[in-house]
């Protein structure tokens, strides 16, 4: 994605995609967490490219994630705001940016992070997804009221 330090061999380290989503302006070092929060694993089907610590005029350094043949839903996009609120989303169709949007911090997130309280009912074998209200002080577990106010990525399921 970035040019080499010498300025020679100008070009993209990560190839353009024909169709899909480019998640740009991710806080440097958070790309792998963005992938995790989107539920992308080795067993899912997406073609994925990741660039980390790319020089950025506004951010100093940033990460970029490209997903081929998958357009993210609004709910998926907003999850990213929890760990990288400055990220921007570009929907690509036939090599062109068709839609460009920012991320919004959601008011409720389900099935994304695990409650750190070992006594919480959401950490048992009940048929429920974890549920957190997003409040200024952090993420509040809707079941036990436990608050996650630091290291959100450490609690991603």
């Amino acid at each position, binding site marked *: 994605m970035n040019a080499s330090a010498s300025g020679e061999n100008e070009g993209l380290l990560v190839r353009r995609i024909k169709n899909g989503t480019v998640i740009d302006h991710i806080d440097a070092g958070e790309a792998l967490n963005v992938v995790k929060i989107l539920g992308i694993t080795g067993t899912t089907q997406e073609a994925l490219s990741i660039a980390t610590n790319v020089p950025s005029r506004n951010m100093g350094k940033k990460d970029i994630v490209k997903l081929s043949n998958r357009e993210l839903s609004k709910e998926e996009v907003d999850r990213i705001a929890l760990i990288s609120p400055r990220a921007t989303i570009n929907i690509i169709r036939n090599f062109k940016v068709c839609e460009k949007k920012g991320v919004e911090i959601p008011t409720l997130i389900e099935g994304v992070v695990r409650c750190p*309280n070992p*006594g*919480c*009912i*959401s950490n*048992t*074998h*009940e*048929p*429920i997804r974890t549920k957190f209200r997003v409040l200024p*002080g952090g993420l509040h*577990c*809707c*079941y*036990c*009221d*436990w*608050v996650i106010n630091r290291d959100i990525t450490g609690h991603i399921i």
Partner: protein
Amino acid sequence: MPTRHIISIGDFDRNDIDRLLDHAAQIDERNYDGNALCGKILAALFFEPSTRTRMSFESAMARLGGSVLSVGSVEACSMAKGETLADTIRVVSGYADAIVIRHPKEGAARLAAEFATVPVINAGDGAGQHPSQTLLDLYTIRQSMPIDGIDIAMVGDLRYGRTAHSLASALSLYNARLHTISPTGLELPANLAESLAEKGMEIIEHDDIRDVISTVDVLYVTRIQRERFPDSASYFNVASSYRITPELLADARDHLIVLHPLPRVDEIDPRVDDSPHARYFDQSRNGVPVRMAMLMQVLQ
């Protein structure tokens, strides 16, 4: 109309609480219909031991003409075979008009409310919420003084004591000032203290009950559990310095009341029982009219 549940005191605003306490006071004056819940069935799902809460819910239901279904013990029900709480709740919803639940896991009542097709009342979930206890605590305070602006001292295990957490949250709606006196390691959880402070509650920590005994209106005593300490000697050492005695109360204001959610072990000297300050047995008795008001709220 959505099903009405009572899960957490945080779901109530000040008007809701005042209305329910007014209704309980009316019931206390025998101003109620003894057949109000005739034909209604309450399912009592107690997955943890309970004496006062369970019996007062049963008494409340009986006084209103309704009846109660119970599972004898956890060992006797399908949860012992590995059934999920969600399934148990769906099944029991078909047998009863309301469910009262006590469960060792925090958030269990909230989960029950998601799966129930009838109202759910939380009778205590782990170290979480116990709203009916909070309502009867407030009711008992209100019998002696207006709740607004009181100085209350909470003594004992404030870390794991769910009754203290719920009561402190409710009192933040009444501009109360909270004094805490607890052994090291059993202080009010930082999260809760922060959230109470955000609501404008003044919280003052003290090392010794004697520092506040002459200035507070309510002394709320909770049990310090032996299992929180490495050995009996350290437990007795700590517990003795948090014990309420007639000598300690000699310096108290005339109108001070002593509350305790019970059961007590060594926290209150039995000689205090006859003092005009002691209200913990009234508090326990108040469980019936308050729970009658709660049952009428969800079942009528």
